[in-house]
């Protein structure tokens, strides 16, 4: 029976006691945390960027990667001129915010596919990231 536990963390100091969990994979969201965790003995640690299908050198590349998909998913399907105007007016904000959220969603989907985890724990210091990861994992589980 698969008992794999995945722990998302961005701060090595927040890591819970994992002694009772035989199959643990720590996925780090922060390179400094990755550095500290890999220095500890006996921990299996991977950086979350390893689950990205490509490395984005800049946000321009990230936005470009998700732009067409988000535009098609979100564009108003009604014929009202007002809807189109508002959509265009706020498109910069929409793209800026939802590209990042969609990127996280894509990373977690890839983690589900390749690691087949049974459960998750979160040790994320950044509140916004913590909420994003918890909700996305909850939705995809």
């Amino acid at each position, binding site marked *: 029976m698969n008992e794999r536990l995945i722990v998302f963390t961005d701060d090595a100091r927040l890591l819970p006691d994992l002694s009772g969990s035989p199959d643990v994979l720590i996925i780090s969201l922060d*390179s400094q945390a990755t550095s500290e965790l890999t220095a500890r003995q006996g921990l299996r640690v991977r950086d979350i960027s390893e689950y990205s299908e490509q490395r984005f050198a800049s946000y321009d590349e990230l936005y470009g990667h998700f732009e067409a998909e988000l535009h098609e998913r979100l564009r*108003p399907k009604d014929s009202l001129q007002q809807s189109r105007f508002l959509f*265009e007016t706020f498109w910069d*904000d929409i793209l800026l915010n939802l590209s990042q959220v969609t990127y996280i969603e894509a990373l977690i989907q890839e983690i589900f596919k390749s690691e087949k985890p049974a459960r998750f724990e979160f040790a994320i210091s950044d509140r916004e990231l913590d909420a994003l990861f918890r909700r996305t994992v909850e939705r995809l589980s």
Partner: protein
Amino acid sequence: MRRILFASYGGFDFSMISPVLPLLREKGYEFAIINRYDLAPSRKQLKGLTVFQPPDISDRLLSAEEIENALPTFLDTRSIQHLIPLWRGQTSGLKYLTGWSDYYFDFAVETLHRYKPDLIVLSLGEAETSIIRRACELLSKKYVHLVPQRYEFKSIETFRAPVKATYMVAGEYGKERLIRKGIKRENILVTGNPRFDAMFASRNSHIEPAGAERFGSLRGMILRAPRVAEKTILYTLQAVRGEAKLFELLRRYTSSRKGVRLVLRPHPNLPLRSCLPFIRYLIAEPVSLALGGTLGGLLRSADVLVTLWSLTVMEAFIMGLPVISWKSDFFPEEMPFASRGDTMPAHTYAELENALDRLLFDPVFRASWVEKHQVCYTPYIGVLDGKAAFRVADAIEALAEGDTMRRAV
């Protein structure tokens, strides 16, 4: 008399247009600004400038629930229902949403009708600019984008660049970035950025650029007198993700090296309360908070700038101050400087420690770094010849007088 209307240059961005205004006046232009943002930090420079600012619209701010309810009015949300709760309330634009945009659109149209400008000089990015650009297009008003530095250099600041518009950018880097977005080369004018000229002028003369003062009554005040120290690390605060973590690592460094102090620079557009998390460390540690003085003076007094993605990097380049750029999350790089070799990148404490040691305590390495990077700002902002404001003013005049533009060029 011909009239120029500037649009959406609030706060920090105002310093890039303020040197241009006297030149336009000499050319016989009147000018005004339409702005949703508070111009308070620039109030001293507002003499002779008409300001069109909508009345307080705080009563039009929507609650999180109202935002969620309003989204389906212009988005097809069926496929992103799960994303909305993650997203809501995170974006300033979304806080205003439809009520704000309707209101501001009407205000922009009314302002264009009343003021009758010959040319609108627009910022770039965000809903506010989109709304004014739309008003210009509907009323067949000529406009040009004078691109603020954050859009020119930060890729995290996404923006659409209408293909047919004309743009003024500081340097070749911004030009190439716009070309990658589909803008024709001939529609991009490289002018330099007037605020950088002012910084460059202060580099040797020690004359501070106009408008460099900040925090009004706190001017000149430094919270906690700096200790006598041999080396100063300047850390620019921005209230962004990862800031506290980097602060902890810098504290670790200063506590492990004698004679090194850390000076925090609050973000000029953020309230002072954003510094509160750091205040308690001022008491017993070599940490100071720079509340007064000028940016030029601060950069001159520092030995190295450490930053997440502050554009103070550009001023540091100009002043010849080495920069370490920190990046530890899994998102892409926000700015091009590290990947182009202009800043020393650090992703872990070991890399940060090594970079600081080399720049602070290895005089041969430091001299070599400074020598190699003394004009590294050139691709971004061109040659600093003190004439950027003249080039911007000349371009505005040419565009205002030209009859080739009926709408956007």
